């Protein structure tokens, strides 16, 4: 499980995270929501040791962040950051192939290659496999980066706004994939979502952050209410129950 204990983070005089504690048990899809600047990306970066911890502690299973082997963690946890930039000289297949690096360390075997092809299929990237990243559309590129995190094949998968640039079909397909990872392989998927309706449709649990702290945490039906939207997002929106789950009318 991912165990976040009393994590605070500041940049200069700005307090970005305030004493955040969060336990994410193995298995399931957990959505992370909250207004812009709430600290969601910072929290994910800290868990994936992309930024260094200032106070508190984070453990991923038995691996202590800040003290554990980078390679061991890369085999246990994958992250898709909110902003990705990659060398434009890579083809899509090259990029996705790098996702297997923590396992083969530069010498891919037949199985590694098969996994890459499988992911290219899964994310509908076959038509672009040999294209260079710079020639892709925003959504195509986003899918390539998601596929790269996917083939890393880790117990924990952190995705920061993976639906950016994705069309309706691609968004639903991706969420269904993630759901399937959790259901059939027991993986833990943590996903930052701005569209609350995707969160209620696909997540088992929604964690809401605001001002660097967790302000709501629970099953979609408990968390997504008109009162929560009012207090957290400061917006009046109606919430109705449809198909057994809350839906925000925008």
């Amino acid at each position: 499980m991912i165990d976040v204990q009393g994590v605070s983070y500041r940049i200069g005089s700005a307090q970005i995270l305030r004493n955040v504690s969060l336990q994410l048990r193995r298995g399931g899809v957990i959505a992370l929501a909250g207004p812009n600047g709430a600290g969601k990306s910072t929290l994910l970066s800290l868990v994936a040791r992309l930024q260094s911890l200032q106070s508190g502690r984070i453990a991923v299973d038995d691996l202590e962040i800040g003290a554990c082997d980078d390679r061991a963690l890369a085999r246990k946890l994958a992250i898709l950051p909110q902003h990705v930039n990659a060398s434009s000289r890579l083809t899509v297949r090259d990029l996705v192939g790098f996702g297997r690096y923590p396992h083969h360390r530069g010498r891919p075997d037949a199985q590694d290659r098969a996994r890459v092809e499988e992911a290219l299929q899964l994310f509908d990237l076959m038509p672009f496999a040999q294209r260079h990243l710079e020639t892709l559309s925003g959504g195509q590129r986003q899918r390539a980066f998601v596929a790269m995190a996917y083939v890393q094949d880790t117990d924990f998968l952190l995705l920061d706004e993976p639906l950016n640039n994705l069309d309706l079909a691609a968004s639903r397909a991706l969420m269904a994939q993630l759901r399937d990872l959790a259901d059939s392989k027991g993986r833990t998927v943590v996903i930052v979502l701005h569209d609350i309706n995707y969160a209620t449709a696909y997540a088992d649990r929604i964690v809401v952050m605001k001002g660097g702290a967790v302000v709501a945490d629970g099953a979609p039906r408990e968390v997504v209410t008109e009162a929560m939207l009012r207090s957290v997002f400061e917006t009046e929106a109606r919430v109705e129950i449809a198909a057994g789950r809350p839906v925000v009318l925008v």
Partner: protein
Amino acid sequence: MLRNRMLLLVLALILCCLGYLLTGVRGSWAFALEFRGLKLAALLLVGAAQAVAAIMFQTITGNRILTPSIMGFDALYLLILSGIVFAFGAQAYQQIDPWLVVLGNAVLLCAAAVALFGAVLRQGQSDLMRMVLTGVVLAVMLRSITSFLQRMIDPNEYAAVQAASFARFSRAETDLLALAALLSLVALAMAWRLRFRLDVLALGPTAALSLGENPLTGQRLVLLLISVLVAVSTALVGPVAFFGLLVTALTYVVLPTHRHAVLLPGGVLMAGIVLVGGQWLMERVMHLDTPLSVVVEFLGGLVFLLLLLKGLKR
């Protein structure tokens, strides 16, 4: 495609080497071959060191404009050299075993480079133009401190330093060759072992870290190797500002790939072709007196300008 192009490069290099060794021999063949063979080895070594240092540097800095020489690595080497002459005097300096000078200088350069360039790299990772500027300013600064030191040394002693500070592709110091070969072959072998990690480091610090490659560790290791390679090359032929850039630019054009398993050997071949082929053409075919370094620096400088202009437009 890459395989064929690598083969072509190998063939071209062999051709250049044969041409260099075998054309225009007057008098004793045995003497000519031995003499030329040593010079050839020195040229190949310098080329390999410069090419691999430049490619690795461009990989960890995430750009294809900067090279260790442009950032002032060899200026740092000269500074250390002048410092030694200044501290001990030229007489004492000339009595020091050249092996010791190169070794000591390489060690000092490693330490200084990691401290200085490590800091610059951490600062500039996100902002290429700032890093280019910092590098160029740094190089100019190091060079002026060096010439300041050299002015303080008396003219005779100054001549001793100057003899050691000008690129002389045609009379590489063959007596140093054994040590240089040893040092650089070790560094080149280590660079080769890093080839897959370099592929990952080229993705940028964030992606590298999430794939389990710590960019800071990698950067330090690479800076160490670069220092050794630059020290060896500068000890053999003096500083060269734009040679590395010329070679990397050509390599990337001929071998369009991100894989260092191809780029590193490709760069070594390309450097050999430019140096040996250039030397052969200038000396034996065109009978020109112009040192090759002047031509190489001119072409390299041109490439630098072109890349810079292209980069600025984007």
